[in-house]
């Protein structure tokens, strides 16, 4: 039922560029002797350089560029500045403002008749749409850019757009299309000898395989990507790829390898002052500790990640981390804190118009309200979440929230609604191949069916639940958890060191920034062209992983299931033999008792055990372990009692006037005991002095009502002795247990009618 948002990093363009000499750029910009175009280029480059590392510095240079453009009447400087300002605001999540700025930039480039400029802004606009989660708009921008770039012979830009389109297709889970675009861009980058971008594309192909759950292929592509990033001396790409590899090890439950890769990734991000990358890795490490239920460490890492995201004003990162912290508090039952963190996360996601995350957060809030007993608020949040998931056609999301709704209704005692939502969730969870969701839906359905008396439907759900749960708690995961324990301390220590370094790095960076602002008027020259590429550093969807998990664990489950079946049979044998022995012991004991009253009491006890034992005899002869066919059972019970009590069994007939009827064991056992008492009574007292007669037994179900009738045509009211006090007390007790009502009639023979609704 827990929903985790995993951080996604999108880095534009950096990987293709070598580290510029920022000092010489600052000198170039500050040198009035240089032509304006060179000074504009230098400012443009400085703004570009700082956009990820120091967004405020980037904005500062963009504003310098804009002021310079106004002072020198340079439309090019204005358009470039607007582009950088748009980038800054898009990054902060102010998409409306960003789009306005981008549109202004595009208009200037149009007025200037500069298609290259238009293409550049279209690429940025596309990335903004991507950030906003509007993939179709993003695709449109990238396609327009691609058409322009191809017609202008901008081969590098065009190849970058192929990469971006592939990346969007990847996000849309259109894997074949994504692969097609990636391969096309890879060919172009190979022709251009662009090693760095080849590495990026290979990394993205790795992500496709990761999403499809083919971890071996994914790791192979990640390794190729890593080697190329290394030879291209691109620490950012290496850091991202190492992070992605860490995620795979995490999914596979190899927490040691996962932490090792996260740690290497952090080290590289630190060497580049990339706080975003550090924040993501800290969050991922927090998730590992969360999975291990080490809440203290989980919270510590999430808080560190949050601090960095807040410093970077990275709204998505902040929102995701707030949710992750909410999860930690929720699991610890600190509902007030959980509520506060979820609410903050929801507010940010709403401002970003990230519908999928809004839906997940509403579900998390619903969970908190449900735990607090605030039914109406819980329901409102769940229903709103369900509506969003349905509009997004997110099967797994629908399954998840429908199960929560079902649990909600089950707690409220509305089993029909609970079953309804369970039946909505299960097929969708199956379609999504999500093991955890299947297990949750199956457990809900089991409870709902059981509570509403549909035992025959309940049992398969219980079996499904256990199968899914076993596949989740596979032995490999348990082994990994043990390995993890050993590695935990050492890694925590080294990561603390890494974090200290990060803090020192930040301090150093601030110092540099001061110096740079002072040096901003020194002279120099530099030129670099902005290009766009998406680098995806992200977790894959559980859907594809779990598909693979399912098929790989299927055999294991089957073997285990066969083993369980054998064990179950063995237990059944023992239960049946023990019941037989109990009956034998009671019989032997009664045979040794001299006092007739006491002997009869013990013998009656033996017969009560027999009536229950007979249920077990019937139970295990069938495939279903939950239901008993009552006609067969009552026929055997009545025959046995007649044989036991009648000195001449042929004298008393038994009429079984009923159709076949299946009941669950919880009802069958008390009913059997009641019939045992009633028939015993008739046999003992209704037919004195060799009188012949019949006993009629009938059990019928009409709608929700069960009617039991036990009648004899014996002496009736003339029979004053109506069994032992204990016998009739037992009938009253068991009738009450079944929620029934008893009526007796002694006008003709002795008739007992039992109504259970």
């Amino acid at each position, binding site marked *: 039922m827990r929903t985790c948002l995993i951080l996604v990093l999108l880095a534009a363009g950096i990987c293709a560029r070598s580290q510029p000499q920022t000092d010489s750029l600052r000198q170039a910009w500050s040198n009035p002797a240089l032509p304006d175009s060179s000074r504009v280029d230098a400012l443009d480059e400085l703004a570009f350089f700082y956009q990820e590392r120091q967004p405020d510095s980037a904005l500062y240079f963009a504003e310098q560029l804009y002021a310079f453009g106004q002072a020198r009447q340079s439309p090019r400087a204005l358009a470039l500045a607007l582009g950088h300002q748009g980038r800054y605001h898009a990054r902060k999540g102010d998409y409306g403002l960003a789009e306005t700025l981008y549109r202004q930039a595009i208009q200037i480039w149009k007025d200037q008749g500069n298609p290259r400029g238009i293409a550049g802004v279209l690429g940025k606009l596309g990335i903004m749409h991507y950030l906003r989660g509007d993939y179709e708009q993003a695709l449109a921008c990238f396609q327009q850019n691609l058409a322009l770039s191809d017609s202008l012979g901008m081969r590098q830009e065009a190849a970058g757009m192929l990469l971006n389109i592939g990346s969007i297709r990847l996000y849309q889970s259109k894997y074949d299309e994504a692969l097609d675009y990636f391969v096309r861009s890879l060919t172009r980058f190979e022709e251009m000898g662009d090693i760095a971008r080849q590495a990026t594309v290979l990394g993205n192909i790795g992500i496709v395989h990761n999403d499809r759950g083919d971890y071996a292929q994914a790791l192979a592509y990640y390794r190729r990507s890593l080697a190329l990033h290394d030879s291209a001396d691109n620490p950012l790409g290496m850091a991202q790829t190492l992070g992605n590899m860490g995620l795979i090890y995490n999914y596979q439950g190899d927490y040691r390898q996962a932490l090792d890769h996260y740690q290497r990734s952090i080290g590289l991000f630190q060497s580049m002052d990339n706080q975003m990358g550090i924040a993501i890795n800290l969050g991922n490490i927090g998730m590992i500790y969360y999975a291990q239920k080490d809440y203290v460490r989980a919270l510590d890492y999430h808080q560190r990640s949050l601090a960095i995201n807040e410093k970077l004003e990275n709204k998505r990162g902040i929102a995701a981390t707030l949710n992750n912290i909410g999860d930690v508090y929720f699991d610890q039952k600190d509902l007030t804190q959980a509520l506060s963190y979820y609410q903050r996360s929801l507010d940010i996601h709403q401002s970003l118009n990230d519908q999928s995350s809004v839906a997940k957060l509403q579900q998390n809030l619903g969970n908190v309200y449900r735990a607090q007993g605030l039914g109406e608020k819980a329901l409102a949040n769940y229903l709103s979440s369900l509506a969003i998931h349905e509009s997004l056609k997110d099967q797994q999301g629908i399954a998840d929230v429908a199960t929560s709704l079902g649990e909600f209704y089950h707690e409220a005692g509305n089993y029909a609604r609970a079953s309804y939502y369970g039946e909505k969730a299960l097929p969708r969870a199956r379609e999504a191949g999500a093991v955890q969701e299947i297990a949750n839906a199956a457990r809900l359905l089991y409870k709902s069916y059981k509570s509403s008396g549909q035992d025959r439907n309940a049992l398969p759900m219980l079996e499904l639940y256990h199968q899914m749960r076993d596949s989740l708690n596979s032995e490999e995961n348990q082994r990994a958890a043990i390995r993890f324990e050993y590695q935990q301390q050492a890694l925590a220590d080294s990561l603390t060191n890494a974090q200290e370094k990060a803090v020192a790095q930040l301090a150093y960076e601030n110092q540099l920034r001061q110096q740079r602002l002072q040096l901003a008027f020194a002279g120099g020259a530099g030129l670099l062209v902005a290009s766009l590429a998406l680098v995806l550093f992200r977790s894959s969807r559980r859907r594809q992983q779990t598909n693979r998990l399912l098929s790989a664990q299927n055999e294991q489950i089957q073997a285990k299931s066969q083993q369980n079946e054998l064990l179950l049979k063995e237990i059944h044998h023992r239960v*049946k*033999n023990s019941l037989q022995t109990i009956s034998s012991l009671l019989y032997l004991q009664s045979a040794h008792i001299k006092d007739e009253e006491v002997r009869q009491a013990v013998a009656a006890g033996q017969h009560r055990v*027999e009536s229950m034992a007979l249920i077990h005899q019937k139970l295990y002869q069938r495939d279903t372990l939950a239901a008993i066919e009552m006609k067969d059972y009552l026929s055997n019970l009545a025959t046995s009692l007649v044989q036991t009590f009648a000195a001449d069994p042929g004298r008393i007939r038994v009429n079984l006037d009923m159709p076949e009827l299946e009941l669950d064991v919880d009802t069958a056992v008390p009913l059997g005991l009641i019939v045992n008492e009633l028939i015993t009574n008739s046999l003992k007292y209704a037919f004195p002095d060799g009188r012949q007669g019949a006993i009629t037994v009938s059990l019928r179900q009409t709608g929700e009502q069960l009617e039991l009738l036990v009648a004899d045509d014996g002496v009736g009211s003339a029979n004053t002795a109506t069994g032992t006090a204990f016998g009739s007390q037992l009938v009253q007790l068991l009738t009450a247990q079944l929620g029934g009502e008893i009526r007796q009639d002694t006008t003709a023979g002795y008739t007992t009618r039992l109504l259970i609704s």
Partner: protein
Amino acid sequence: MQAAIPDIRPLRILIVEDEAAIAAHLYRLLRSWGYEVAGTASSAAQAMRLIVRQAPDLALVNVHLSGAATGAALIPALRARRQIPVILLTGCGPDELPAGLLGQPGLHYLPKPFPDGLLRAAVAQLLGPAPPEHPARA
């Protein structure tokens, strides 16, 4: 109503059961219903000797005896000698029994745990009622 008594001599029943309490229970039950007990065996080998010496009219056989031979192995010996009818006592479901065991004439399957009355009905079905002069209870 009453079936004809086929023989004056008391009907003799062999008990093959290795669970002592259950064997004692069966012994007393059969006697209380007016039958003779031809012997109680706790292993297949012991049962085989009793089959030869006592020539029982019916055998109650626990299919799963501890030891080398199972109760099921006795069935051919019992059936070969005068077609001795058998009541198989077992904690197994019908599908767990050796193939071909069920469905033979003179073979009655009585799953454990069974109430005393059902055993009485099965015995009476295979042998007819016990001679009436015996006491009703042990």
